[in-house]
């Protein structure tokens, strides 16, 4: 499952502005190749090894795709992958519902709060997730007893339903905040949203109209980026799910790695490939976006 978290980091790199390439310095070309090769080996060797490991046919010594074709039918795959996808989608939805209005509001109406919001959204990166989880676990253990017999106890039970643990969604929203905020903020940096909204207002557009016709198109790419990062984060998150005792896609991979090591690695390789595909898709959509400034 570490494959997926690595992909999440790769995605974050896609959000950052590209560094200008300084040309003309002697030796720069050589160094570029050295760095690229080193980085390439660093990423490619483990992936190549995994691929080799999963394609090898144990007895005959030939090649086989059976570990890949066997994934859909594998015990527990459909259930846990489906659950992780559901958790991911809910997290994306909630995080965007929370952050898009916040970012837009801060940009247009409360620019003085910008630093505060930025610091707040960075907190999850500074606080170790383990601290967050332990805190959540204590509350979950304490609350049902404390509120026993009240509707609140029911709420706490519902939050921990194993089929769709909403508590994970809430924790993941917190963990995703830094990425979502950065992605949205990066999308606003390049445009003067305030002037654009004023231009639209001046031309007679109502506020809902401004939101749909001006703000959302400007934020489209960054919303996609944020959604992608969040999804990758949730699909690869292990610690929180494992400690709270829920069965998700990553915990399932660990579960089967003992008995079916090749299957578990095959799943990891496949999810990595899927993540890359999503990334390519987003950058393709981004390139098609006509108004994008060529950076």
């Amino acid at each position: 499952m570490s494959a997926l978290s690595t992909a999440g980091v790769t995605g974050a790199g896609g959000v950052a502005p590209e560094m200008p390439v300084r040309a003309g310095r002697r030796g720069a070309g050589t160094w570029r190749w050295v760095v690229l090769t080193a980085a390439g080996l660093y990423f490619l060797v483990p992936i190549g090894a995994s691929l080799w490991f999963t394609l090898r046919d144990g007895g005959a010594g030939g090649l086989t795709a059976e570990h890949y074709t066997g994934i859909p039918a594998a015990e527990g795959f459909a259930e846990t992958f489906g659950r992780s996808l559901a958790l991911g989608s809910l997290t994306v939805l909630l995080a965007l519902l929370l952050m898009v209005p916040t970012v837009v509001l801060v940009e247009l109406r409360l620019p003085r709060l910008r630093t505060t919001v930025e610091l707040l959204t960075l907190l999850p990166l500074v606080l170790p997730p383990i601290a967050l989880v332990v805190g959540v676990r204590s509350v979950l253990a304490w609350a049902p007893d404390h509120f026993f017999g009240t509707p609140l106890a029911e709420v706490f039970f519902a939050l921990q339903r194993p089929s769709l643990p909403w508590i994970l969604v809430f924790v993941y929203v917190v963990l995703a905040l830094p990425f979502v905020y950065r992605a949205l903020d990066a999308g606003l940096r390049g445009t003067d949203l305030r002037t654009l909204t004023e231009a639209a207002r001046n031309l007679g557009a109502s506020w809902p109209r401004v939101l749909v016709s001006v703000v959302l198109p400007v934020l489209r790419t960054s919303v996609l980026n944020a959604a992608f990062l969040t999804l990758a984060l949730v699909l690869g998150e292990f610690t929180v799910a494992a400690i709270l005792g829920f069965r998700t896609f990553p915990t399932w991979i660990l579960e089967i790695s003992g008995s079916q090591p090749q299957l578990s690695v095959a799943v990891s390789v496949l999810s990595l490939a899927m993540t890359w595909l999503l990334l390519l898709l987003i950058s393709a959509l981004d390139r098609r976006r006509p108004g994008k400034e060529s950076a």
Partner: protein
Amino acid sequence: MTTLPAAPAGTAPAELRERPGVGVRLEGLTRRYGSVLALDGLDLDVTGGELLALLGPSGCGKTTALRAIAGFDRPDAGRVLLDGRDVTDVPASKRDTGMVFQAYSLFPNLTVAENVAFGLRVRRRSRIEQRRRAGELLELVGLADRAGRYPHQLSGGQQQRVALARALAVAPQVLLLDEPLSALDARVRVQLREEIRRIQLELGITTVFVTHDQAEALSVADRVGVLRAGRLEQVASPDDLYERPATAFVAEFVGTMNRVPAVLAGGGVELLGVRRPVAGAAPSGGPVVALVRPEALLVAADPAGEGRVVTRTFSGASTRLAVALPGGVEVVVDVASAESQALVPGTAVTVTPAERAVLVAPAG
């Protein structure tokens, strides 16, 4: 009107010319930002159909005044009237003003034509009308061939033309321009300001043009309002402003002005060894300086003169001389180039004020 080499031959669509210019009136507008008084009881009357330039140094409240007219910003006190109607509480989207912003403000996801048609789309006009009107306006600003481009494919000057077309497409009552040329280079700036003036005259649309460039204001405006610290110092035609500035601030902000040491004496003012009448009101006491335009000083080569030519800058028909006078005073003088050939740097000269009334301001 000046003819431009690149001037498009577009004419204004008839429906844009139907409305006569509408008057704009600001009454006691006050706007405070924390401890900063951006507008300090501003009164202003813009006559229907005129182009009024709001001129003033950075931070004097020009943008704030314009935003109050457009409805982006609510004044703390005072009223905004469009065509005699109080619109102080009308939201920006219902004000019927067309604004061109200092920053590039085209919608990046829309083509040039779609940008121009945006206001019509919001007003639910038919697609056919949107396309026709956008075409006419792009013709008017000379960009008909760029209709399908996206904003980032245009130069800064072209983007501002599109912004102008977009603002005019909805046939607004008033056109508001907030330093629309300040991001452009000098040549484009001169060309575009003349084009704005051509279009404005053609449509007869009431226009408020904000700028901090006095040459820009003087060259295109019917009247210029000089703003200082949130208040109007003077509103007058460019000629009046230049020739008869009401205050020392206006005198020095508009055009080049020399400060010459002077003394008030016998109802007149003594400067450079001669006496001249005082223009307007003289300060009641204390040390004063005379304010004299470069073309209101006469210079003559004179071996006994106390002035020395420091630099000589040729600019076509006239030549500007910088002359050092005793006491560390330096003045600039404009002379006809034909008469300035002998006045090379180092020449000893006398400088005298022309025979006319002189503006006097407190020294310091």
